[in-house]
């Protein structure tokens, strides 16, 4: 038996080992990697795009394989040897050249057909239907409105499962972009333009996305969080967000409310039921019901609210929130007020 070189064993063993892992489903990497992927669609639009992407990958892999195989084959077969005579000086071959043009052209036509078909299915006209949700991009947070229910919130988007939802996308300052890979296509948010997209979520759950158009210093911390709710959960969300803010009961929280109203907080933030009616910063009416703060940057709890109030720039550099240089007691009071805004 011929002795095989070491590299042969190395590659052969690796190959066999990987196949065994995949066969035994021990390769835990694969499902995990796909968990937030556009190839793991959870909505109708994302599904259609993933399907088209799969077709494309098959065609692209074929082309790459042909080019790679030919390159390696020619390199192997036509390597110069000592004393080679001059090769035959072929200049052209009309038949080969026609195939070179014809095959790519056919593939292009095929994919153009699929492009138009999928594009029309993913983004059909909305014919002046009123949007179910309006999301407005701000530097660096999302304003979320449900115009039919008269609800406004921020950063966490709740969508009902199983029906096509029309989302209107706007911007209050620079260009932002909506992207939740598992739920479908991106859409830019451009000042003074009203863009829209359709989202039909198939499975209830929590989906992560991010602003995908560079929008300044904190573009990285402009995460999108979507909660796809069953009908009852969605109705609960709407009804719990319709009333005005809770009035504080504890003395500390009442002090907090006073501080909130005497400082200029209300010029930028809105808390329904109080004098605070600003629209330049996140709506805080039901702030404590949100799971994260600072647009997906930190968990929403007393400690982090405290940290942020003490020095906003140290927590999220560039953020438009001013440092009010509050003393510790005022901070505690404010934290107590904000964390009870369920």
């Amino acid at each position, binding site marked *: 038996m011929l002795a095989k070189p070491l590299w042969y064993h190395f590659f052969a063993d690796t190959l066999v080992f990987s196949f065994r892992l995949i066969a035994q489903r021990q390769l835990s990497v694969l499902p995990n990697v796909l968990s937030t992927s556009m190839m793991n669609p959870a909505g109708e639009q994302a599904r259609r795009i993933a399907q088209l992407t799969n077709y494309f990958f098959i065609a692209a892999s074929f082309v790459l394989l042909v080019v790679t195989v030919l390159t390696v084959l020619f390199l192997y077969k036509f390597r110069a040897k000592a004393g080679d005579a001059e090769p035959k000086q072929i200049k052209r071959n009309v038949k080969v050249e026609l195939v070179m043009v014809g095959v790519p052209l056919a593939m292009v036509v095929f994919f153009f057909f699929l492009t138009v078909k999928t594009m029309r299915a993913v983004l059909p006209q909305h014919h002046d239907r009123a949007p179910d949700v309006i999301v407005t991009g701000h530097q660096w947070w999302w304003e979320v409105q449900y115009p039919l229910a008269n609800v406004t919130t921020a950063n966490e988007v709740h969508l009902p499962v199983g029906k096509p939802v029309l989302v209107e996308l706007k911007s209050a300052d620079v260009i932002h972009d909506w*992207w939740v890979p598992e739920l479908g296509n991106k859409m830019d948010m451009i000042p003074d333009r009203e863009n829209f997209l359709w989202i039909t979520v198939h499975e209830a759950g929590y989906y992560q996305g991010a602003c995908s158009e560079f929008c300044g210093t904190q573009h990285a911390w402009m995460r999108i969080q979507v909660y796809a709710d069953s009908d009852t959960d969605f109705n609960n969300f709407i009804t719990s967000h319709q009333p005005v803010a809770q009035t504080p009961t504890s003395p500390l929280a009442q002090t907090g409310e006073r501080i909130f109203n005497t400082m200029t907080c209300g010029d930028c933030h809105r808390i329904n039921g109080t004098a605070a009616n600003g629209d330049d910063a996140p709506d805080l009416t039901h702030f404590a019901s949100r799971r994260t703060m600072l647009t997906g940057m930190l968990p929403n709890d007393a400690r982090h609210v405290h940290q942020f109030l003490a020095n906003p720039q140290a927590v999220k550099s560039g953020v438009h929130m001013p440092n009010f240089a509050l003393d510790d007691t005022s901070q505690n009071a404010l934290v107590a007020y904000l964390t009870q805004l369920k």
Partner: protein
Amino acid sequence: MESLLHVPEPAEPLPSATTRRGLLEWISSVDHKQVGIMYQWVALLFFLAGGALALMMRVQLSVANNRFLSPEVYNQFFTMHGTVMIFFVLMPALIGAGVYLVPLMIGANEMAYPRLNALSMWLTLFGGLLLFFSFLTGGAPDAGWFNYAPLTEEVYTGSGINYYCMGLLIAGIGSVAAGLNFVVTILKMRVPDMSLKRMPLFVWMMLITAFLILGALPSLNAALSMLLLDRLLHAMFFVNTHGSPLLWQHLFWLFGHPEVYILILPAFGIFSEVFPVFSRKPIFGYSFVVASGIAIALLAYGVWMHHMFAAGLGNTVNAFFSASSLLIGVPTGVKIFNWLGTMYGGSIRLRMPMLFAVAFLIEFTIGGLTGIMFAIVPIDWQVTDSYVVVAHLHYVFVGGSLFGVFAGLFYWFPKMSGKMLDEKLGRVFFWLFVIGFNLTFLIQHWLGMIGMPRRVYTYLDFPHYTLFNMISTVGAFLMAASVFVLLWNIFKSIRSGEVAPPDPWDANTLEWYTDSPPSLKNFERVPPVTSDRPLYDFKHSHQPDDAT
């Protein structure tokens, strides 16, 4: 003619290891060979600067929630990295190659406008220096290399954007002048027998590139001037209340997409010289290579809106630009098979230029195929502005344009310096660079598909984000290490490399007929041009190459 301005020109043979010449002579030179070489030094200077920026970005991104760079600094670095690599590395390297080679390949002894030629080079250098000067004035530009309005308006960004506008405007004027110079040189200064059908393919590609520059750069220059007026005089071209932020995108990409072909066609030209020489065969389908180059250039002006598929402009307009962008894949694919056809049946010498050419075939095919992804509107809607774009554009700009620059460097270095580059060091450089490059960018396709947007200074610790980013960072350091091997190779070869004969590669075109390095006049006499391979015909004059 005493009153005429005296133009200093080198009186001795061109620089080589045996001549020692002063800096002043280089600075005052209008010789196309010296200007061409200075273009390469400019490109190398900015390549090292842009590469250092990229390395620091990769360090910042190596683990989740890293605090190595602040967001402000990171945003300046990625903006500068992109801007510098495109405008001050690839453009000067490729235009400079053209400035050095075009006159030699067409049997001329100068560019048509030598002073304008030098002016173009110096404008490029000073534009780049002005851009970097912004670091000392309170911050470099920080809105990305395509600088979208209204983020670039005074309300949102600092003075760095002014330097972006002025630096690129200065360099842009230089590029337009260079384009004009190429067109006139190529159309008017060829040796009498060299009809357009007998022009070397590199010259053809430079001619097409020159027309692209003349058509595309004015759009950028206009947009930059308008943005400067916005910022300094409150003109409001790109402000949404009075103007339109989308106008910037149209003007920028009307330049920006042809720009991609300005950076790739000269590389195509380089490879179209390398493949035949190192396969010892004529190019397969000369007229197809030329025609597909022209087709790419024409289509280039009609595809810009595929950068704006996610801007919500409607399915009808998206379908049009999808079709035109898909079509551009046809002439590009044709070229790949032209080069493969050239290798077929040849006698392939796998020297350094050919090594880069072969690697290019595969890397560029990957970049080209992911390019098609962005022409298919629904897929583009998912992957645009994600790390898939970062991966794609590096496969095109590095695997395409930069591999072209490297192939050209190893191919023509003997002509420029009179010394051969070291083959062994070259191979170390090649493998380090190719492995590092694929390690850095291949994984980014997956990063993008699992949801990582581009241009973020940090990221959440999602499953595998840190792992993938760390792999990418390791690859970047391999590439950095390879660059030092290249620098050492250049330094060592200039000092003590093997002396290059006039025609070390047994090549086909006229520049190999003259000395290495060429004399000031380039040629005493030129062999008759009977095909696109005049030197081949000359060497085989007993069996003339009669196009059968």
